[in-house]
Each structure stands twice: as structure tokens, then as C-alpha cells.
């Protein structure tokens, strides 16, 4: 109850005209920057941090928080309309979102993304309001062994479930892991698989690979298969036409609620973040949702899982940041830098010593979330106008965005080379039925997995028993085994039943 009394006080501060305006500006800039390929929330917050230098700390963090979750909304736009995820968490949104665009349902896809983002964001903020310090402490229970088990679960689940045959997904997963192993080994500092190329010492960058595999391969597809892209000319563009019907809202709600809770929890874990949250939630949705089997073909439920999770994770990342001073993601680290720049020391005492600051920030997140959805819905008709542009004009525009976006990730021309290679490989893998998402997930997770493997072994004197003696880790491993074996057993049982039913 105490938390809610503080929250109301926070609302009083957040509702001041200056703070409302900064939340509005932050949310708007976040949406715009999020929709730009290559400029993710990390780059977005870093680029816009200097704008807040001369602001009052409360207004400053409100603006940055607005940029952060505005980014999560914006990332979905280019993913749905152009198949270029604005940032990494939107990768899973692109799968169903773009498939819906191809079926002339871009407006509905955008609406579903916005609604799910709003629900996910609200769940994340509610959890943050009620349980921030408790959850942050729970997040700390996730040591290296637990993280290894969680990451292995994520690895296997997505590899196992994407593609016509699990082998496709698993090969894609390990190709992604191997790409991630290029560069400096995060454990011992050894340089691996670089062939002496100095640009590879710090490893391949994620953004150019995503842009290449989704965006550039899309351009190749447009050129080689021009006829199938005539859909780009015919979408009805109105808010009314984009509204979701009752059936669709019913499909979105359970998925968004579940993914919101899951996403918030993953967001709290150190080093996990919105990308992993959206991957895990999408795969969970594919397994438990009524329309799980249609995920990937363009269903609003798939978009809901991914979008609700990444918005909830963005809110969840604030729990360890504010109550423990631990950033859960790269973007949270930039926010931490901002807090310290304003002379605030995040940690257990921040909620007591700077209560006004903390609670006005949390209150502003409620307001910002509402502002975000209003802006996002208002721009749908303008955004869907993109679909009226003929495919012949779209191809060079997307190509330009691919080049500029991949360069902007690190300001390095080498990333453009990577994007081009990734685009061609992505196109080739697609043609051979290999799904791209497991490759990307493995690419993101491998470095963290390797670091946590090393730490877990070190803690336990080199013995792997740590993975089986810690309850959370063991539970996750059991879940992973069930995740793989249960569908196989069910399939066999079903097959033997069908054989038994057939008349001899």
C-alpha cells in the first residue's frame, strides 16, 4: 500500500506541465528513432542523452525513459511494414508482422503491435510499482548456473520449434552460435576465427546481420520474385480499416498478458533484456497459444507475444537499475550513466532517499505508455501509406536504409559489408527452408552463455554439478528436457493411435 501512496505522489510530480512535455517529447523521439533501422534503444538513448544534460534530473530521466519505451513501440513499425526490424527485440515481430503485411493486413498488424505493447508495458510498470525491490532481489538469485540453464532453454526451444523439421532450426541455431564466436573470446581474451582481420576482433555486430538477413534479403526477394510483391500497392489506409475485431482482441489478450509477465521477469534478469524476452515469449506462445501452429504465417497472437514481452522487459529493466544500481541491459547502462551524471546513486537507498524522483519516474512511465499508444495509433494511417509506394521504388529505398542503418550501428563501413553478406546468406538460407530467427537468437545469446558457463565452472571448482544442484537451474533444465521430449512422445503416441485406428 505504501508503494501506491508514493505512486500517487509521483503522479502529482509527473503531471506537471514540464514533465508531461518531456514525456511526450521523449516518447515521440523514441518512436521515431526506434523505427529507424540500425538505431536501437541503446543507440537512441545514447544519442539523445546529451539533450538532457541541462535538465532537472526528474525531467531528464522521464525523457530518457520515454525514449526507451517509445523505441520499443517504434521498432515494430519498420519490422511490420518493411521487414527491417528497427532494433533487435523487434526481430520476432517481423516474422508475423511482415507476413500480415503481405496479406494486406498491415494496419491490423500495427494495431496489434501497439495494443500488445501497451498491455505489456502496463503489466511491466504495474509489476515494477508493486514489487520492484523484491523482484530485483529475485533477479540476483539468477547466478551463472541459472543463467546457463535459462539460455540453454532459450536456445533449444527456438531451435526446436522453428522450421518444418527441428533439424532446420537447430542447424540455423548453431550457425548463429558459430558466427557469434568470431572475435575476442569473452572469457580468456583469445582472438578467434578472425583470419587476422582487425574489424573482426570485437566480433560481428548484431544490427548489420539483422538488417541484412531481414531487410536486404527482402530486396533480393523483391527483385527475383517481383510478381508476389504487387500486394504493396493495394492496402486500404484508415484507422477504421485497421481496427481489430473482437476475435482478434480475444486472441491478443491472453498472449499479451502472459508475455507481459514473462517479459518483465526476463527484463529484470541481469544481461537478459528485451531481445531475449521477446524470443522466449514468442516461443512460449507458439507452444501454448491456441493458434501456436500458425505462428510465423501472420497471426496477431505472434505479434502480441513479441511486442508485449519487449515492452514489459523495458519496464522490468528499471527494477534492478533503480533498486540495486545494476543495469539489466545496455540501454539500462546508459540510463544508469544518466542517473550518475545528475548526481544520483541508484541502489537500495534510492527509493527512500530520492523517493520523489523514483516514483515520479514510475508514474511518468504510466503516462508515457498512454502517450506512446496514442502517438502510435495516430501515425498508423501515415505509416501504412508506405505500402502505397510501388515495389519498384521501395527496393532502392529499402536498400538505402539497409546501408545507412547498418553503418549507423557502429559508424563503420565494415558493417555494411557484413550486412550485404548477411543479406545474401539470409536469402539463400530462406530458399533452403532454414529459419533465420534461431540463427539470430543464437548469435545474441552465445557470448552471454559462454561467459556464464565459465563463471559457473569457476565457482564450482570445475565441476558441472552446479547446474544440477541449484534448484532454479535444475528446474529450468528439467523444463528444457520436457520441452523437447513431450512433443516427440505425443507425436509418437498420436501416430501409433492413428495406425491403430486404421482398418487392417
Amino acid at each position, binding site marked *: 500500500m505504501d508503494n501506491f501512496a508514493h505512486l500517487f505522489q509521483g503522479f502529482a510530480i509527473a503531471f506537471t506541465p514540464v514533465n508531461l512535455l518531456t514525456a511526450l517529447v521523449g516518447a515521440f523521439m523514441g518512436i521515431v528513432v526506434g523505427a529507424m533501422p540500425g538505431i536501437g534503444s541503446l543507440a537512441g538513448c545514447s544519442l539523445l542523452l546529451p539533450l538532457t544534460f541541462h535538465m532537472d534530473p526528474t525531467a531528464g530521466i522521464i525523457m530518457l525513459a520515454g525514449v526507451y519505451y517509445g523505441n520499443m513501440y517504434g521498432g515494430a513499425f519498420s519490422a511490420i511494414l518493411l521487414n527491417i526490424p528497427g532494433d533487435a527485440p523487434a526481430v520476432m515481430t517481423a516474422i508475423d508482422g511482415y507476413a500480415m503485411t503481405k496479406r494486406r493486413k498491415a494496419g491490423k498488424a500495427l494495431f496489434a503491435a501497439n495494443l500488445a505493447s501497451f498491455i505489456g508495458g502496463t503489466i511491466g510498470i504495474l509489476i515494477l510499482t508493486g514489487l520492484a525491490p523484491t523482484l530485483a532481489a529475485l533477479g540476483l538469485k539468477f547466478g551463472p548456473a541459472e543463467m546457463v540453464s535459462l539460455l540453454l532453454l532459450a536456445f533449444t526451444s527456438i531451435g526446436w520449434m522453428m522450421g518444418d523439421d527441428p533439424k532446420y532450426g537447430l542447424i540455423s541455431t548453431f550457425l548463429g552460435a*558459430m558466427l557469434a564466436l568470431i572475435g575476442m573470446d569473452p572469457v580468456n581474451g583469445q582472438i578467434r576465427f578472425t583470419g587476422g582481420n582487425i574489424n573482426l576482433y570485437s566480433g560481428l555486430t548484431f544490427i548489420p546481420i539483422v538488417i541484412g538477413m531481414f531487410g536486404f534479403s527482402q530486396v533480393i526477394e523483391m527483385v527475383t520474385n517481383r510478381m508476389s510483391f504487387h500486394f504493396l500497392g493495394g492496402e486500404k489506409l484508415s484507422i477504421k480499416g485497421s481496427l481489430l475485431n473482437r476475435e482478434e482482441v480475444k486472441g491478443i489478450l491472453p498472449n499479451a498478458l502472459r508475455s507481459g509477465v514473462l517479459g518483465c521477469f526476463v527484463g529484470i534478469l541481469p544481461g537478459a533484456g528485451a531481445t531475449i524476452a521477446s524470443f522466449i515469449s514468442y516461443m512460449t506462445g507458439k507452444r501454448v497459444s491456441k493458434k501456436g501452429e500458425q505462428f510465423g504465417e501472420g497471426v496477431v497472437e505472434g505479434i502480441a507475444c513479441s511486442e508485449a514481452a519487449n515492452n514489459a522487459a523495458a519496464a522490468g529493466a528499471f527494477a534492478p537499475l533503480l533498486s540495486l544500481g545494476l543495469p539489466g541491459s545496455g540501454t539500462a547502462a546508459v540510463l544508469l550513466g544518466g542517473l550518475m551524471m545528475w548526481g544520483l546513486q541508484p541502489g537500495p537507498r534510492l527509493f527512500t532517499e530520492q523517493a520523489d524522483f523514483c516514483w515520479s519516474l514510475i508514474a511518468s512511465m504510466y503516462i508515457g505508455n498512454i502517450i506512446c499508444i496514442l502517438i502510435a495509433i495516430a501515425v498508423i494511417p501515415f505509416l501504412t501509406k508506405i505500402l502505397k509506394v510501388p515495389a519498384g521504388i521501395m527496393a532502392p529505398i529499402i536498400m538505402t536504409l539497409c546501408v545507412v542503418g547498418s553503418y549507423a550501428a557502429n559508424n563503420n563501413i565494415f558493417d555494411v559489408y557484413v550486412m550485404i553478406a548477411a543479406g545474401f546468406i539470409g536469402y539463400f538460407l530462406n530458399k533452403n527452408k532454414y529459419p533465420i530467427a534461431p540463427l539470430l537468437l543464437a548469435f545474441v545469446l552465445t557470448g552471454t552463455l559462454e561467459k556464464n558457463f565459465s563463471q559457473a565452472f*569457476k565457482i564450482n571448482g570445475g565441476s558441472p554439478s552446479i547446474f544440477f544442484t541449484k534448484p532454479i537451474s535444475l528446474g529450468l533444465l528439467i523444463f528444457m528436457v520436457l520441452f523437447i521430449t513431450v512433443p516427440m512422445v505425443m507425436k509418437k503416441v498420436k501416430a501409433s493411435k492413428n495406425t491403430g485406428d486404421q482398418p487392417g
Partner: protein
Amino acid sequence: MTYIVEIFSIAAGAFYIYMGAAKYGWWKGISISGGFMPIVCGALLVLFSVLMLITKVKTGQKAEKIDPKALIPVGAMVLILLFNCLLGLVGACIAVAFLWLKLIEKYSWGKSTFVSVVLFICVYGIFRMWLNVPFPTGLIGSFI
């Protein structure tokens, strides 16, 4: 072409196993060394690729043919990289976009120019002027 991904994966996996074992090492003291993950990932990749290969051979699956037109966008990208030295990255992108519209899509001079100019204003305005991305300017840019 049908088995190219599997054959490449087996070769890459074997290379990772070899490098992991011979160069980076599997274990160091009480924890993993730089070769641990390459060996594990390489071995699993080889395993699943072999299984995939067997499945494909057994079922007689054929891969979709790769259209030679796929090389057009790749060629355009190479052109952007070449023009980059002269025009800078944004200039190169716009020049190639213009050429694409004019030569491949056969749009009129006016329409091609209009789209290219709008694209330039949007890209330069957002990425260079607002977000301060320091794009390479090329030879011409350095003179200006």
C-alpha cells in the same frame, strides 16, 4: 545446390572443432577455455547437418533454384561501396537509387530525380543532421 548448406555446415563445424581443439584449447585450470564453445557448437552442427543430409538424400528433397537476378541487388551494393570513395556513403546510396529507378525500373528522369532528392533529404536530415551519424564524405565531400 540441394545439399550446399549441409555440406558447408559440416565443413564449418569440422573447422571449428579442429581450431577449438588444436589452437584454443578445451579446458584451462578449473574452467572452460576459448575452444570449448567452438568444439561444442561445431560438433552439434556437424551432427545435425549429417542427419539433415541423410534425411534429404532419403526423401529426395530438392532445393529451390537460386535466381541469377538475386545478384542485381548485390551488384547495386557493390556499386554503392565503389561510389562511396567518391561521393560519400549517403551520396553513393542516392546515386545508386537514382540509377536503379532510371535503369532497372525505367522511371522517367523527373520521377527518378524527385524520389532520389526526397530520399536524400530524409536520410541526410534524420541520420546526419538529427542523429549526428558521421558518414564518410568521399573525395567530393572532402573538397566541399
